[in-house]
């Protein structure tokens, strides 16, 4: 059993490596195909005053005139050794740029995701249990509305109400003024961004849990439990939820790209010091070293998430064969 899960995980990994290679190479080709010359970008207006020898030397050093494959190979060798190159827009090594910011994004995303899951389970169960009641209708109705609302618009609304009008919570960054970063301060600053991320991700989980529970109500073991006279709350928690939660696990992995997208936008609204700002800067300044590294990294996270979800699923439900 464990062995077959291990094999399946290995097979997934074997798919992930070529995907990452293909994605990074495609990004590389795209960057080369763009009309932007990194050397010209580096000099900017100073290129007029720069001596041709200096420009030629830089071209030589950076190897910009070599064939794409040779350049990609050089990048890949360095990347595997931990050197992702330098970010042109932020004048820092890419690994330093990401290292400074990644922790903040991971913090926001993990807390937001956990909260969205809890919300999804609780509200979804309530909605299915009280099917067609006013509670169900208001939960499902607001889920549809929230799904249609752009997350940054939600963020602005929350920012306006709770930070600017009511002044209950800080509306941006991780510290107030020049005070040093502290656990309590970060926790307070985290409330609004995490809440918005969770609220924007939750509807999907809520609707999914509700639908699956409703389907499980017609399954034999649930009908059997009801026929034995068990009270509703025991039937829901002990019988219906168990089976309907299994597909939930695979969804966690499938939801990761949306989560990363949501986090990018929430970070922008709340000036969170994560990778969003760096991503937008990199895009505006055609900083491919940084943008490419960020994209490959995000892809890696998504693939890893899918792998984890599959393994969890197989552990939770031994009937599932992981072939295919």
């Amino acid at each position: 059993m464990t062995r077959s899960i291990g094999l399946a995980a290995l097979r997934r990994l074997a798919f992930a490596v070529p995907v990452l290679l293909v994605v990074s190479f495609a990004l590389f080709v795209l960057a080369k195909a763009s009309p932007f010359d990194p050397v010209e970008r580096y000099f900017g207006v100073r290129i007029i005053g720069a001596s041709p020898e200096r420009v030629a030397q830089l071209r030589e050093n950076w190897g910009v005139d070599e064939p794409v494959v040779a350049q990609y190979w050089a990048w890949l060798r360095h990347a595997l050794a931990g050197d992702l190159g330098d970010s042109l827009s932020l004048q820092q090594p890419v690994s330093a740029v990401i290292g400074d910011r990644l922790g903040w994004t991971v913090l926001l995303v993990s807390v937001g995701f956990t909260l969205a899951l809890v919300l999804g389970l609780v509200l979804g169960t309530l909605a299915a249990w009280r099917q067609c009641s006013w509670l169900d209708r208001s939960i499902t109705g607001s889920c549809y509305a929230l799904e249609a609302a752009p997350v940054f618009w939600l963020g602005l609304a929350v920012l306006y109400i709770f930070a600017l009008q009511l002044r209950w919570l800080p509306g941006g960054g991780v510290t107030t003024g020049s005070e040093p970063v502290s656990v309590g301060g970060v926790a307070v600053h985290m409330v609004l961004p995490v809440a918005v991320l969770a609220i924007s991700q939750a509807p999907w989980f809520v609707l999914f849990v509700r639908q699956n529970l409703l389907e499980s109500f017609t399954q034999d073991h649930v009908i059997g439990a009801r026929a034995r006279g068990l009270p509703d709350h025991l039937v829901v928690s002990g019988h219906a939820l168990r089976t309907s939660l299994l597909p939930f696990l695979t969804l966690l992995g499938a939801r990761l790209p949306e989560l990363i997208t949501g986090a990018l936008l929430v970070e922008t609204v709340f000036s969170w010091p994560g990778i969003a700002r760096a991503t937008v800067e990199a895009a505006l300044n055609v900083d491919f070293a940084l943008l490419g590294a960020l994209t490959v990294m995000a892809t890696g996270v998504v693939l890893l998430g899918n792998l984890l979800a599959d393994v969890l699923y197989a552990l939770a439900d031994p009937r599932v064969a992981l072939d295919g």
Partner: protein
Amino acid sequence: MADLLWRPAPRSRLTAASPPRSPRWRLLPSAIILAVVALVVLIVPLVVELNEQYVDLAIANQPPSAAHLFGTDELGRDVLLRCVYALRVSLTVGVVAALISALVGTAVGALAGSIGGWFDRILMRVVDAIASVPHLLLGIVIVAILRPSLSAVIISIALTHWLTAARIVRSEVLSLRTRPFIDAAIVGGASRLQVMTRHLLPNVAPQVLLATTLMVPHAVWHETALSFLGLGLPPHAASIGNMINDAQRSLLIGGWWMSLAPGLLLIITTLAVSGVSGVWRDRLNPKRRTELTW
């Protein structure tokens, strides 16, 4: 004892999902809203001209009033009128991008499904690979290469959204290929191209149209997100995302109405589109009734 036996069973709602409301009542409100939005977006620009350069500081930053239902912005322009124009821009981008991605997706899906074998496997792995890159990030990369502009936004949305259409068309083609009427056509001497254009594509068309319709709100959402990040349409072009981006500054001085209207308009339009396509989907796939009832 007899009392206990005759006690009515407690009311339980742990039953099968109740049947959806009759399609007409689910369809009608969405269809009306969609028709009104379409009419307004098409007709208002013909009647009232929006002058982006028009500035009237005397009526700048006014909260909603009878004259300006959603207030005015920091240059004294009517927010609602700008919103109508913005929705027009956003919807155009959404529809064009959705159509392009449907075309690309249908082509890839039909080729993969009908040729099959290694070709199919490689194409589908490519689709899987693209699907693992977060859409918005890939869109940002494409916009960064092409520089923010209308066409760059449309291309970036189209290139990230054709995967769904490709998967749908491929699976439909695969299941159609085993049907007797295709065999009959092949036996009757139809060429590959004829089978494709006369028999396969017409049968796939309804599903593709549905997927395209569902893609429009997604594409609009994508455009607004890119514009909000400052990577979308040029600042002077009023799109929903640009308007929300502009309104961000006014929030600090208390101008909530400038972001309210674009957001609400977008939500209402999206809900109406998904309402209509939900009924449509149930009709196309009666077995896979994914539409939730409420």
